[in-house]
């Protein structure tokens, strides 16, 4: 792969990550309920972090630093859903009811 191809591929990945960061932020600000907000930010942030880290690793190339970036990507793919699950299970066990249609926002 040539130099310009590597740069174009990494820019495409990073812009996709920015897009999913923006959608996760809009979901966190606009959704009516705690569980739906957590759904938006958990999934969107996981995908956005993976896309951004893969783009940066492609731009860095094959080296020890690129390997560390790939390691961070693997770690985030495991850790982010675990943290989201822990928060939602804690909220459900403390008795926060999920939002249904027709209720007020809370």
């Amino acid at each position, binding site marked *: 792969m040539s130099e310009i191809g590597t740069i174009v591929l990494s820019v495409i990945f990073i812009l996709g990550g920015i897009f999913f960061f923006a959608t996760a932020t809009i979901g*966190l600000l606009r959704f009516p309920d705690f569980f739906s907000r*957590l759904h938006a930010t958990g999934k969107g942030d996981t995908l956005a972090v993976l896309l951004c880290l893969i783009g940066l690793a492609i731009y860095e190339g094959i080296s020890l630093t690129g390997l560390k970036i790939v390691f961070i990507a693997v*770690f985030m793919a495991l850790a*982010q859903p675990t943290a989201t699950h822990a*928060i939602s299970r*804690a*909220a459900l*066990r403390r008795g926060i009811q999920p939002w249904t249609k027709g209720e007020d926002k809370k």
Partner: protein
Amino acid sequence: MMNQFFLGTGMGISVLVLLVLYRVVFGPGVYNRIAALSAIGTKTLIILLIMGFVFQRVEMFVDISMVYALLNFIGCVAVAKYLEMES
């Protein structure tokens, strides 16, 4: 060329961090605040790596970013467990 791209990317993610900060400050209840803090932590991870690319010191900032990811995960799970056992 790529330097300006990384600068613009970092500034865009910083604007998103400021938007999420609204949910941290005014969010109803403690769980919304924890979720928003976790989102801010993931965004900060990417900002740290982009700072490394801007300053041409990636091999230093990648270690800081790794530690930040670990601390964000451990803090999130610890606060969730504390709130679960509190009642």
